[in-house]
């Protein structure tokens, strides 16, 4: 799992498996994160999650 607080760009987030989430990217502690040009495919459960609090 990758935790980021900045922009998420140009990633391939593919083939993650989790019962809830945790296989991909966590965007934490940022009110308005920006995501651009990512491929999000063939994941089970949540590949990316964003919330306002810290991880």
């Amino acid at each position, binding site marked *: 799992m990758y935790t980021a607080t900045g922009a998420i760009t140009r990633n*391939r*987030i*593919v083939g993650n498996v989790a*019962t*809830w*989430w945790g296989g991909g990217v966590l*965007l934490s502690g*940022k*009110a*308005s*994160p*920006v*995501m*651009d*040009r*990512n*491929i*999000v*495919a*063939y*994941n*089970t*459960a*949540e*590949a*990316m*999650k*964003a*919330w*306002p*609090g810290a991880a």
Partner: protein
Amino acid sequence: MLNVNAGTRVTVTNHVIAHNTVLTATRRRALRVRLVRADHNTIVDNMRGAAPGEGVRIGAGGGTNVLRNNIIVGHGTGLVVAGGASVSADYDDYYDNIVRTSAFPWGRTTAPIIRSLTSDDGRLSPGAEFSGD
């Protein structure tokens, strides 16, 4: 596949979000978002278990959620708007969804010609209506 909790609003542009599966009734969204903007995304064939899922779900809270020029294909419902959420959606293409949107009837319904999602190529084919070629 992207779950945005209350208190955060995201900008999602130029994505391919395809062939993802969520497992339970409470977490059934391909893209549950609170948006600043969503532009130029291709969202295809996301599932809830073995059934067609939701393409985009707009969560309640925050300001107006703006969607433009998105292609949403192959879901149970293409766009779901939670009660109380403010949405401005236009120039989006809904195709092969059982229900286009939960909120309003407009939007294009043209079959997009996507190059190859199996090889992560979500670009439109040359000559496709939305490609600009």
